[in-house]
């Protein structure tokens, strides 16, 4: 499978599904992280979509799977993901994936297949509504049973295993975030909230921009895996709930009514969370070049974060080149303000919340 686009948030679903279908672990091949070298070597003009770099990179990933293997692969599974599972599903209008996400698969496919190329017959690109498990079961049963030589009900079982696997992974990551926050709460120390799309975790897309911040002693939480511990959220959103701005802490209708896009919704919710969480003294926003989905969120996200006194830094227009010089100056800037202001930001944000903090309480109980 190509490690691109939606796979950065649905990885465990697909791996769980393949393992349940009986594919041996050693027979599952994933493309490597995105890199300029990968794109140069394997995409060579098979450009999918012009401006969106993450979408463009799909060709490099698929090319690597088609052309860069010692033994040819039997199948290359590159799903066209229509909608995504999301922890705020039910409170938003929809959890659709970006249209470029699907468009990229379609145009990549034509570029590899149109001219009788080497991908024929091996490239499997099922349309799947992962946001709606019942539909996804049917879609995948239809598209995968035959290529994998299994019965439809085996696929349905595998789909369920995939969802289980993904849920477990997401909750494991949230637990880690919760541990980090608890630790910050105990020590009264700051951490950084990263707002981005899942593929910004790919070193070739996010350019490891936040690494330097971590090396200087700041833990990093990513919005996809912000904790959703009920007690913590009730505490953080207590003033909003009391004022009736939202019906529950995962509600974003107060700031983002057009909540159709899954990742966008999660970024917006992440901004709300980071703005309220006292230990997140700084938010780093990552965004790829000319991302049409991110565009309308820039101002509201920044305003929300800044209004709370939290530091906000944007690394926008990321594409193939890693502008090392400019990134170095920016991260140094971030570090300067973090050191200078974290303490006062933390105490200001803390003062806005009810005195009883569940994070320090848990600690008191354990202690």
């Amino acid at each position, binding site marked *: 499978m190509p490690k691109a686009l939606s796979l950065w948030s649905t990885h465990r679903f697909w791996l769980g599904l393949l393992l349940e279908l009986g594919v041996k672990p050693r027979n599952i091949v994933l493309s490597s992280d995105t890199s300029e070298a990968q794109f140069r070597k394997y995409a060579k003009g098979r450009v999918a979509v012009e401006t969106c770099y993450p979408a463009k990179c799909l060709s490099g990933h698929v090319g690597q799977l088609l052309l860069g293997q010692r033994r040819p692969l039997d199948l290359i599974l590159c799903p066209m993901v229509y909608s995504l599972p999301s922890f705020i599903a039910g409170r938003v209008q929809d959890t659709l994936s970006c249209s470029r996400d699907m468009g990229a698969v379609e145009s990549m496919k034509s570029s590899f297949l149109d001219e009788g190329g080497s991908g024929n017959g091996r490239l499997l690109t099922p349309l799947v509504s992962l946001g709606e498990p019942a539909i996804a079961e049917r879609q995948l049963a239809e598209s995968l049973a035959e290529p994998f030589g299994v019965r439809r009900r085996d696929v349905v079982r595998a789909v369920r295993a995939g969802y289980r*696997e993904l849920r477990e992974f997401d909750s*494991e990551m949230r637990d*880690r975030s919760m541990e980090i926050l608890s630790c910050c709460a105990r020590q009264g120390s700051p951490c950084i909230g*990263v707002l981005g799309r899942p593929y910004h975790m790919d070193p070739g897309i996010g350019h490891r921009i936040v690494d330097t911040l971590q090396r200087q002693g700041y833990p990093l939480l990513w919005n996809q895996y912000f904790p959703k511990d009920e007690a913590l959220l009730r505490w953080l959103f207590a003033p909003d709930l009391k004022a009736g701005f939202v019906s529950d802490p995962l509600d974003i209708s107060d700031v983002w009514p057009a909540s159709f896009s899954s990742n966008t919704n999660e970024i917006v919710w992440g901004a709300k969370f980071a703005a309220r969480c006292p230990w997140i003294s700084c938010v780093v926003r990552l965004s790829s070049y000319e991302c049409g989905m991110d565009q309308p969120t820039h101002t509201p996200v920044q305003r929300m974060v800044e209004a709370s006194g939290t530091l906000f830094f944007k690394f926008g227009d990321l594409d193939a080149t890693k502008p090392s010089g400019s990134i170095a100056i*920016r991260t140094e800037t971030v570090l300067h303000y973090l050191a200078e202001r974290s303490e006062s930001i933390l105490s200001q944000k803390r003062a806005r919340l009810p005195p009883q903090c569940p994070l320090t309480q848990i600690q008191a109980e354990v202690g």
Partner: protein
Amino acid sequence: MSAHTLTCAVDVGSTTCKYVLCDNLGVRVTQAYERHYTRQAEKVLEFLRVLEHDFNLTPGRDALLMTGSGAGSIAPLLKSRVIQEVVAVAAAVEAMHPDVRFVSEIGGEDMKTLFLTRTGSARSRQVYMQNACSGGTGTFIEKIAAKLKLSAEALSRMRYLGLPLHRISSKCGIFAEADANTLLKTGVPIDEIIASLFEAVVLQNLSTLTRGKTPMPSVLLLGGPNQFFQGLREAWLHHLRTMWKERGVSLDGEAKDLIRIPEEALYYAAMGCIQTVSEGDGRAPVYRGTTELARWIAEGRELRKREQGGTALWRTAEELASFEHRYTRTAPAPAAPRAGCSHAALVIGCDFGSTTAKAVCMSPDGELLDSVYALSHGNPIEDARALFATIRERTGAAPVRALGLTGYGKNLLDSVIGADLAIVETVAHATAGLHFFPDTDCICDVGGTDVKIMLLRNGAVYDFRLNSQCSSGNGAFLQGVAERFGIALDDIAARAFAARSMPRLAMGCGVFLQSDIVNQQRKGWSVDEILAALCAVLPRNVWLYAGGINNFAQVGRKYVLQGGTHRNLAVVKAQVDFIRSKVPEAEIVVHPYCGEAGAIGAALAAKRSVGAGAKSRFRGYRAMEALRFKSTTSADTQCRWCENQCQRTFVDVRVPGGPGRPRSKVPLQPGWDRIIVNNSCPKGLIEDPKEVKQVNEDIECGNGAYPDVGKLAHELAFRRQAARR
């Protein structure tokens, strides 16, 4: 068969004009091409007169067609029809090379690809074209060849096959130039650099102009660069051959025989015009003679130039006067420093930039006493020594209360000079900006070689745009043009304000802007008018092109302009007008100390960091004078810890108690300390493999102590086993 006795087609390109004359059966009577040196209209007139005189081209009887990037403005004067050049080339290729499926045409300032498909009797053409950026075009190659001092002759003979290749950015001519420079400095032979350049051009064409399609054989390579550069043709052969093999394209013969460079390719656009007409009803616009073209060259052009141009930098004398009144520099000049001046202590701020080094001396109350400026000699230690020698002389070695550094040299010099604080440029500029204008939303610093835009909120820089790789919009570009016109830097503003109208220059790529200037000059615009136009286009380049800022409402309303380029009032006027056009209520101020803002910020921050009664860490003027150093950049200093292989420089400084590095590849005696620069990560500071292990362990340890959930998810998410089984 044509309805006309003779049909002439003229192709007006960016560097040359060509014509082809055919009889009514489509047989070529004559053809020619000549460089027009940007006098396109004159060249066309000359051609037509020759054709009338020598070949009996007759107005009212024969036909005239036009094509090429310059045809648009000339064709109406001749009542001729313009056929889009790509359409024309495609028609010629289809007629003359029915087996060709892919055409690449690389021009001086553009590149095109053409996919021709044939299904039964149906034909389809798909054209892709790129003309906004120099990357991958002829100019791109020539610019670098000029930098390497290669003649066109030598360049045409340079090879590609069999030579080691290096990484050269194919995206922008200016990035590529920087890459080529680095390669040259590290000792890479010129033929390898040029081979790498050909590689970059072909890759750029393949990656941006094929859009997922495979160029199928046979292939035709057109345009000057393809025709003249042997290495470029070899690069095409290499890549197409590899691609065909990889994609299982069956070849009807040897790959090299399937890639052709036709000798008469220059005339394809012109021939294609005639072809296009003959494929239709055979009727072309009747040739009406040269009278109107000649009249236009003599008189009308001047008129049109004025019509097409914009008003100059100002509309009314009152407007200009009010602007000058508001913006003429009102900054108090620094008090003239005296030897042994009465100030008991100085607060010094230094800004070590890439081209200049600046220092300011302030009183502990924040009053600017003196500023010192020196062109950088490329080594910050040398620059620092020079600055401090001047400060010592001018202030009578006044004691230093606090010392702050900023700029790219700050980390290197921090311990060498004994600074109290080394801060990043953005914070230094923001500190200086906020000191004078506390409600600043945006600081726009246009220096000699880079453009910095700092966006502030709550007194902190939340976003920062730096463009140090693209010359578009920087001061050096403006200065460079003025110098070529023989105009001193300080006179640019007066000359630009003298213009009453000006041409419109294209925003964007500096390489193209340069050629646009030459064009405008040939069109008759004066030096003053061109300088005004350059000042006018600068804000667009700064904000839109280099800064990538489109949403000005988000930026805010108070703008501070600083950096040496804003000493030029004409630029300030253009900036003010541009920003106001985006944010009508904007308040725009020029920093009172335009060029010294970074150094002032460093001084102010250092003053704050050194508490009352505390002593500065400054090593003293004498220690600065005694500073000895040597720097080494060689194969031995290259970093080998990862595939990036950064070309580091070792700067060795003599300091009391320096540990030395006896076992280094570049050994260093005790009494010296080594500072490693030009590394891009912490591993680059290491020479000894044992240290790498330690650094890796530290990084691992950091992962445990300060976890990054994103990194963790990246590590765990792609395991090939189920989580809980």
